[in-house]
């Protein structure tokens, strides 16, 4: 079995802004091992989110090659990308992005609905996922009835429920106070350590990145140093 889950080869992402071409990514290459916990750092505008979007198959690179869990992503259609996101990628956003109308349980079942999982199994797996992030007693609460930290836990449960190959978190603690932020980081660490989930975290916080196995630093769309 291949132990490399992500292979990025010379990734380029450029935007045409009128006359000038903006290179959000200007040739980025690296590998990520299965089970790794990796953080991406860098100043604002360095291209961290752009990179995450490509790694998460939300966006396609304008150049280079990207292989996720053995699949060449650049050749895929929109619907195939949607399926990859559904099966192989779990997203955690800075602003949680939960559906405010729906309960925690319904939010967590959402990815399974697009995967065609049966009703009963959806409920069972979602309940388990919520229990594993410590929200077993809050499954019928709506996002507005939960604290920020709890909302982010729901989002993490949602990201994990389809057993993805990687979990991507773009500044997951950015909207949280330091205590809940630490709790969320602890949760991600334990998921990595105990369940072997591959985790990529984008962060500005050195305290957060210090807890990870490896740090990738981006600057102006290129890798500054890979530890």
């Amino acid at each position, binding site marked *: 079995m291949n132990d490399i889950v992500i292979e990025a080869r010379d990734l380029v992402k450029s935007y045409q802004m009128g006359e000038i071409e903006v290179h959000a990514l200007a040739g980025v290459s690296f590998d990520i091992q299965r089970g790794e916990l990796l953080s991406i750092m860098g100043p604002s505008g360095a291209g961290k989110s752009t990179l995450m*979007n490509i790694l*998460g198959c*939300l*966006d396609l690179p304008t150049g280079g090659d990207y292989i996720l869990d053995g699949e060449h992503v650049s050749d895929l259609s*929109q*619907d195939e990308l*949607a*399926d990859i*996101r*559904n*099966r192989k990628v779990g*997203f955690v*956003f800075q602003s949680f*992005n939960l*559906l405010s*109308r*729906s309960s925690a349980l319904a939010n967590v079942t*959402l*990815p399974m*609905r*697009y*995967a*065609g999982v049966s*009703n009963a199994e959806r409920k069972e797996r979602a309940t388990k996922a919520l229990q594993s992030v410590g929200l077993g007693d809050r499954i019928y609460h709506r996002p507005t009835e939960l604290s920020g930290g709890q909302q982010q836990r729901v989002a993490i449960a*949602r990201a994990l429920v*389809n057993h993805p190959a990687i979990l991507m978190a773009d500044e997951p603690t950015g909207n949280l106070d330091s205590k809940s932020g630490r709790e969320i980081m602890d949760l991600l660490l334990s998921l990595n350590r105990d369940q072997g989930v591959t985790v990529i975290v984008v962060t500005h916080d050195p305290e957060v990145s210090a807890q990870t196995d490896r740090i990738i630093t981006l600057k102006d769309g290129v890798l500054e140093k890979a530890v």
Partner: protein
Amino acid sequence: MNISGVIFEALESLNANKMRSALTIIGVVIGVGAVIAMLSLGEGVQASISGQISDIGSNLLFVFSGNEDEEVRNVTPLKEADVAALNDPFNAPSVQTAVASIGGRVEASYGGESSSVSMTGTTASYASVRDIELEEGEFLTDDHQLGVASVAVIGPDVADKLFGRRDGVVGETIRLAGQPLRVIGLTEAKGGSATGSEDNVVFVPLASARTRLVSRSIVGEVDTIYVQAVDADSVTAASQEVTELLRSRHRLQPGAADDFTIFSQDSIASMAESITNVLIIFLGGVAGISLLVGGIGIMNIMLVSVTERTREIGLRKALGARKSHILTQFLTESALLSLIGGLLGVLLGWGLSKVVSIIAIQSGTDITPVFTIGTVLLATLFSAAVGIFFGIYPANRAASLEPVEALRHE
């Protein structure tokens, strides 16, 4: 995703914006309600008119003097002798009975009351040919003709106007254009009628009418001949026999135009039907426009909803929703809006047409709205189609959003 899940989710999101959904639905309710009311009332009018036409009698032909379509120089008037010839089964085997009538509006009076009525001078067989039933007394007989009797059979409206009652009017004497006539019968009410004169009538013996009430310069001239065919299948044959017989009696050269006109009850019925069909299409079309406006309301609301939920759409895509998932989600919402509107609209339309029918009946016109499964299905399916049609653009817009762009949307 299973269908019930999709519908449940769509209902949930419509429910999240109750007021907005309700207002959008009302637009469709009014549209569908108008369509249903117009179609059912239109069909009610059609049924009522065709009912009145069949009340005239059955398998009837109407023969008039003259020709509206072609120019005829010397018109030979219809005469009683023509009627006698038509009644001869040797001449016209498909004719059951032919009966003559002359008539016009005259003044009827009794005591201090007077009223303008439609007078028909005719013979005994008129009752069977024109389906006249008597409430009281008897119809004109052959003896009345022979005796040129001063008798009259009156309609219920005439009784109402002259006597203010319908009981015991037989035996009274009324005056028609000044001539005293003894009432011998009262006809049954035929109900409200498009022609309006079915109940406001007085029948007198043809001979009496000719000598005392109307002046016709030509001896034996009649206005109309009613011909009843032996059965429904013989109406065409009867019409041909009448044509041939009258042409030969009127000594028309081959190739010359008829100097008389034959209408069949069927042709009148189909003419009335084609007129009311135009009416129904027109009313339905006008109502359809309001349904269209309702549809535009749906499109408007769905566009607002897509814009508002851009982030949600981005999130769903990030979680693995395909284009078709998003498309289905928004199409289901718009189809549900219009389907709910359609179902409520059927109820509204039903209520509206009931109200209109009650008002119409109170003012003397008998319109019973006709609801067919077809009308209801048509309106419901059409409204769902409107929802889908006007939902396609917004849903497609939602489904085509770029996930990264959508997620960044504030």
